[in-house]
C-alpha cells in the first residue's frame, strides 16, 4: 500500500512542527504530513532547559547577536546564514508568544530575558528552566488547530527514496503493527534532531540516534562539519542529565576540588561575585569543557565512581531565586542525585550535548538532493560553526524550520505537475526492495549472535576515547578501526524479537546502523581537519589554521560506502576572522 503527500516531514519535534505549520500557512491546499518515531510531544526538544536567544531590548542589536554567534563559532559559521537567523529570531519568538508559550515575564508584563554563555547582551528568553518543554508543547498544541497536518505517530523511517537526484518519499515501519509502507512525497523535510547517543555520556535522549543524518548520507546528501561535537560542561555524572547553563547565568560558580573558581586560569576572565557576560562561568561551552579536562590532568577534580567531576555551586543564590528561576535544576538534582542545590554543591562533568554538524543545507534549508530539506539540529546551515552558543538552538529550529517549510511549499508549487507526481514506478520499486531487505536481513535474522547492546556500548566507548574533547591522529585511527570492525559485526547481531507488534529490538538495530554510519563520518571528518577550532581540539595540531581550514568539511558517501571530504569556503560577509576574546 502506498500513500502520497505533497510535503512529508520526518520528525515531529520543534523544527518539524514549525515546518508543518509553515507549509500550511504558505499554501493550505498542500497535503502535509509528519512522520515521527515518537509522538510529537515526546521529541527531544522537550528537554531543552535554559532559553532561546533573540534580540528584544533597546540596548541590544542584531549585529551584536550576530557577532557573538560568529565569534562563539570560531568563525566557521556562514555569516549570511547567521544574519538571516538573528534577523528573523525575534519575529519567530514573538509568534511563539502569540501562540501561547508561557514565557517568563517582567513585572510590567513584558518578556523577561536572562544572560547566557558567550552572549555579550542579555537576550535569552526563557520559560523558567523548562523552555524547550513549553516551546514544544505550545507548537504541538497549536499544530492541532491545523487539521490539514496529517500525522504518522510512532512510524520509523528506514530509507529515503531518491531517483535521478531528487527525493520521492520514504519507506517507514509502523511500530504498532510492524507494517512496512512506502510513503511518497514531492518534498521531504528532515527534522530528526541530533545524534548524541553515539557517545556514552550525553544529555541526549534515547531517541537521538542521528536517523535523519544517516538517511540523507545514504541517499547522497552530504553532511557538513561533522567533527564538531559540543560537550556541555555541566551534566550530572551517571545519567548525563543536563544542568542548564542558566544555573551559571543566574550566578552559579564552577569550583574544583579546592573550592577554587578554576576558569580564571584559562583566559576566561577574573572572578567577580556576580555573573559577568562573556566571562568566567559565562564563557562558551567548548572553552569550559576544555578547561575541565585541563583541571583533571592537573589532579584538581574530584573522583567519583562515574569518573572525575567538579562542583557547580548555587548555594549563594538562595532558595527564592533557585525556586523561581531554576526549579527544574532543583527537581532534577533532588530526584536523580538526592542533592538539594539550595544546601549542597552539584557534581558535574562535561557530557555530549549537541551536534554542530549535520545535513548540509543552504539558508533555505535545501540540501543538494532536489526536493530534500533539513532543519534544526539534524541540519548544518551553518549558524553554529565550530561551537554553538547556548540558547541559539531553539530559535534556530524556529527560524529554519519555518524557512524549510516555506521553501518546500514553494518547491512543490513551482514544479510542473508531471515531473513530481511522486509515485513513479522506480520509486515504488525502491520501496519494495527496501521492504524485502527489512523482511529478510533484519526481521528474518536468526538469534544466537552477539547482543545489539554490546556493539552499541563498544561504539560509544570508542567514540569517547577517539573523538572526545581532545583528539589525536593516533587515537582517532584506533577509533576508526574499531568502527569498521563494528560495522562488520553488526549484520550478525541477534534480533531475538520476531514479533511484528511494537518491536523495539528491531528499531534498536536500525538505529544502531544509523549511529555507526554517523560515528564514521564524525571520525573521518575529524581525522582530516588538521587544526584546532572550537569544539574540535587536536593535541597534535593545537592552533587554528585559517589558511587551510577556514572551510567546511563536506563529507560525501561514495557508491562503495567509502567517504570523501571536500572543503568549500566559509561565507564571510562583515566579520573577518579574529581572535575569540572572553573575560578581557
Amino acid at each position, binding site marked *: 500500500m502506498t500513500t502520497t503527500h505533497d510535503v512529508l516531514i520526518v520528525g515531529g519535534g520543534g523544527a518539524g512542527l514549525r515546518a508543518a505549520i509553515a507549509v500550511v500557512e504558505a499554501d493550505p491546499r498542500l497535503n502535509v504530513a509528519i512522520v515521527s518515531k*515518537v*509522538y510529537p*510531544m*515526546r*521529541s*527531544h526538544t*522537550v*528537554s531543552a532547559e535554559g532559553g532561546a536567544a533573540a534580540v528584544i531590548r533597546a540596548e541590544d542589536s542584531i549585529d551584536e547577536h550576530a557577532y557573538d554567534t560568529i565569534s562563539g563559532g570560531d568563525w566557521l559559521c556562514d555569516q549570511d546564514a547567521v544574519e538571516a537567523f538573528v534577523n528573523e529570531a525575534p519575529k519567530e519568538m*514573538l509568534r511563539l508568544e*502569540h*501562540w*501561547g508559550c*508561557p*514565557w*517568563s*515575564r*517582567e*513585572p*510590567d*508584563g*513584558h*518578556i523577561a530575558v536572562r544572560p547566557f554563555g558567550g552572549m555579550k547582551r542579555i537576550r535569552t528568553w526563557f520559560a523558567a528552566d*523548562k523552555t524547550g*518543554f*513549553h516551546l514544544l*508543547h505550545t507548537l504541538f*498544541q*497549536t499544530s*492541532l*488547530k491545523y487539521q490539514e497536518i496529517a500525522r504518522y*505517530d510512532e512510524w520509523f523511517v528506514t530509507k529515503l527514496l531518491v531517483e535521478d537526484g531528487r527525493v520521492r518519499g520514504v519507506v517507514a515501519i509502523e511500530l*504498532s503493527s510492524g507494517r512496512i509502507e512506502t510513503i511518497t512525497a514531492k518534498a521531504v523535510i528532515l527534522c530528526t534532531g541530533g545524534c548524541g547517543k553515539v557517545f*556514552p555520556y550525553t544529555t541526549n*535522549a*534515547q*531517541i537521538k540516534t542521528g536517523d535523519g543524518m544517516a538517511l540523507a548520507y545514504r541517499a547522497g546528501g552530504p553532511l557538513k562539519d561533522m567533527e564538531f561535537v559540543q560537550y556541555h560542561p555541566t551534566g550530572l555524572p*551517571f*545519567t548525563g*542529565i*543536563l544542568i542548564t547553563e542558566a544555573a551559571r547565568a543566574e550566578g552559579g560558580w564552577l569550583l574544583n576540588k579546592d573550592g577554587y573558581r578554576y576558569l580564571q586560569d584559562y583566559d576566561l576572565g577574573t572572578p567577580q561575585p556576580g555573573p559577568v557576560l562573556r566571562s568566567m562561568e559565562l564563557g562558551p561551552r567548548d572553552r569550559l569543557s576544555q578547561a575541565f579536562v585541563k583541571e583533571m590532568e592537573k589532579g584538581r577534580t574530584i573522583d567519583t*565512581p*562515574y*569518573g572525575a567531576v567538579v562542583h557547580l555551586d548555587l548555594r549563594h543564590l538562595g532558595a527564592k531565586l533557585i525556586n523561581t528561576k531554576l526549579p*527544574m535544576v532543583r*527537581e*532534577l538534582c533532588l*530526584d*536523580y542525585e538526592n542533592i538539594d542545590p539550595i544546601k549542597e554543591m552539584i557534581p558535574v562533568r562535561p557530557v555530549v550535548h549537541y551536534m554542530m554538524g549535520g545535513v548540509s543545507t543552504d539558508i533555505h534549508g535545501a540540501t543538494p538532493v532536489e526536493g530534500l530539506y533539513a532543519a534544526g539540529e539534524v541540519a548544518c546551515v551553518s549558524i553554529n560553526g565550530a561551537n554553538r552558543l547556548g540558547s541559539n538552538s531553539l530559535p534556530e529550529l524556529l527560524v529554519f524550520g519555518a524557512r524549510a517549510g516555506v521553501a518546500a511549499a514553494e518547491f512543490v508549487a513551482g514544479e510542473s505537475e508531471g515531473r513530481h507526481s511522486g509515485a513513479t514506478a522506480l520509486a515504488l520499486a525502491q520501496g519494495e526492495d527496501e521492504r524485502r531487505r527489512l523482511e529478510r536481513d533484519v526481521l528474518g535474522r536468526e538469534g544466537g549472535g552477539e*547482543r*545489539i*547492546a554490546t556493539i552499541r556500548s563498544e561504539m560509544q*566507548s570508542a567514540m569517547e576515547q577517539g573523538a572526545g574533547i581532545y583528539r589525536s591522529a593516533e587515537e582517532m585511527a584506533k577509533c576508526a578501526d574499531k568502527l569498521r570492525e563494528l560495522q562488520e559485526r553488526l549484520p550478525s547481531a541477534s534480533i*531475538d*524479537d520476531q*514479533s511484528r*507488534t*511494537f*518491536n*523495539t*529490538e528491531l528499531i534498536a538495530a536500525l538505529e544502531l546502523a544509523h549511529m555507526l554510519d554517523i560515528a564514521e563520518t564524525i571520525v573521518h571528518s575529524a581525522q582530516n581537519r588538521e587544526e584546532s577550532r572550537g569544539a574540535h581540539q587536536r593535541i597534535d595540531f593545537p592552533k587554528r589554521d585559517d589558511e587551510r581550514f577556514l572551510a567546511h568539511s563536506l563529507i560525501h558517501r561514495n557508491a562503495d560506502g567509502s567517504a570523501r571530504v571536500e572543503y568549500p569556503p566559509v561565507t564571510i560577509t562583515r566579520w573577518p576572522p579574529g581572535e575569540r576574546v572572553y573575560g578581557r
Partner: protein
Amino acid sequence: MDRSRELASETGRRIAVQVARYRPDRESEPTFQEYEIPLRKDWAVLDGLNHIKDELDGTLSYRWSCRMGICGSCGMTVNGEPKLACATFLTEYAPGPVRVEPLRNFPVVRDLVVDIGDFMQKLSVVQPWIIREDEEPPDGEYLQTPEELADYKQFSMCINCMLCYSACPIYGLNEHFLGPAAIALAQRYNLDSRDEGAADRMEALSSQTGVWDCTYVGECSVACPKGVDPAGAIQRYKLTAATETIKSFLMPRGRR
C-alpha cells in the same frame, strides 16, 4: 554502561522484577515474567528494564526517551501505582520483588506499551491553542504580568504521561470521559490572559462526558508527577460552568 555493572557486582545485591508480558501474535492474554537484576542505589525502574533489554531479554518492549521526567514516555504501573519508570527508584521496593505492568485503563499494545490514541483524540477536542477574535496579533508581545502567568502556569506543566488517566476510576469505567489531563489543558488556555476561547471549549467541557463525570476522587492529582493538580482544574471549571449555566437562564443570549 560497563562501569555501573562493575559497581553493581561490587555490592552484589539483587532484586527480582516481575514484568507483564503480552505479545498479541503469541499470547492470548498477559503473563508475568520474572528477571533478577542488580539492585543499585542510583538505578530507576527504567534502568532495570534497560538492563533486562540489553543483557537478558531483547524481546521486552516499553517506551522511554529522555530519562529525566519531562518527555512523558515511560508511564507504567509499578507495584500497583502509576509511575514514571525513570523517576521511580528500585531501592524504594527493596528487597522486592517489583511488579511492573502497563498503565491501567488503556488497551495494551504489547508488553508495557499502551495505546494512547484515545487521549490524542480528546486533546484536540478541547482546542488546546490560543483562540482570539482579532485577525492579526500585535507587532510586539501580548503583555502578561507574572501574576497572570501564575493563573494558568500550573496547568501548563502537563507532560501528557497518562498517569492521571491510569489513576482515574471514572475513566476506568467510562472511556468517553474527557479525563484529567485534557480538562487541565483546556483550563490552561481558559485561564491564560491572552485567550478568548473559553466559550468555544465549553461545549466539550460541560457535556455529558466533560467535567460533570468527575466525582472528585482526586487520584489524578495524587498520581501527577508534575504537580499539575487536574482535580483542582476540574473543580474550578465546574464552578465556572455552573455560573455560566445560571447566567444563560437569567440573561438573554446575544451574539458572542
